[in-house]
């Protein structure tokens, strides 16, 4: 079963122990929902597959989106949770600087408030969260430039980090 990755603003929104009392009532804390911000009722995730593209490569590409290179927090969950939340999806080309990562982009579509809350509940219950530290991200970016997986232009961001 494929795993899906969503970059989050801060991993500390997703600590299970801090959410457990609300999860037991069928509810979720509000802060994780700020990491599931939609546009046109769509939410961007990336399929992670050790045989194709790994977590480090996706995280590296996503780290190059914000103002500067920093820690990258993310949640990762089984794609079967989408069925449980009645969420539809489309494979679409992503907008990162890494074309291989872009091939793994998925839009969750036709989302509603209830579906997002259900998804957050499922991720908090059955998914995982993690952070890749800034120093490791910088190493990954350097490796990506040297191996030509990333364009030379991202070196500017590396130098500022």
């Amino acid at each position, binding site marked *: 079963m494929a795993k899906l990755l969503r970059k989050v*603003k*801060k*991993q*500390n929104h*997703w*600590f*299970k*122990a*801090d959410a457990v009392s609300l999860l037991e009532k069928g509810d979720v804390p509000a802060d994780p929902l*700020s990491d599931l911000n939609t546009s046109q009722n769509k939410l961007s995730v990336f399929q992670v597959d050790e045989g194709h593209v790994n977590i480090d490569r996706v995280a590296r590409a996503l*780290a190059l*989106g*914000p*103002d*500067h*290179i*920093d*820690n*990258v*927090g993310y949640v990762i969950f089984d794609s079967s949770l989408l069925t449980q939340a009645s969420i539809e999806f489309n494979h679409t080309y992503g907008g990162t600087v890494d074309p291989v990562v872009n091939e793994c982009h998925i839009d969750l579509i036709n989302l509603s408030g209830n579906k997002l809350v259900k998804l957050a509940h499922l991720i908090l219950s059955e998914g995982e*969260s*993690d*952070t890749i*530290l*800034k*120093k*490791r991200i910088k190493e990954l970016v350097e490796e990506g430039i040297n191996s030509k997986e990333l364009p030379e232009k991202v070196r500017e961001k590396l130098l500022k980090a």
Partner: protein
Amino acid sequence: MLVEHMRIMFERGASEFFEDGMDSDFAQDLIHSVIEHGSAAIDALAEYLFSSKVNSDVGSEALRRIADVGDQRSLASRWALLQRSLTHRSSRVRDGAILGFAALDDCRAIELLKVTKTEEPIPELRQLIQKVIEQLDVKHGEAAAQG
């Protein structure tokens, strides 16, 4: 005066949404304050962090950011505040302190973090501490290899 300035800064910070990799007005104000006032600014931050009025997201962001200040004069007081915050009642503040030690990237924190890991109740934070320890172990090994 400084405490009042910091209080206003923290109150303004509470209206911001912090995100890894994104600049924030709060972080810029905080770094300027630490550069200008040194340890006095860290003392004011400590007073806020351990007060009943602390916003844990602001506190977490502050700890993460004070590690980025390259000011040697205030290093001891920044280190002391990060160390004290590793046992803060808020998991988010502890998260900021752990990430602060990752940003400092100073091998002298290894033993401290090993002890903290045994006492940390949140599994995700124990995992994060382990990552920081591994980062510092690599640096320590590289330093030893260079003699």
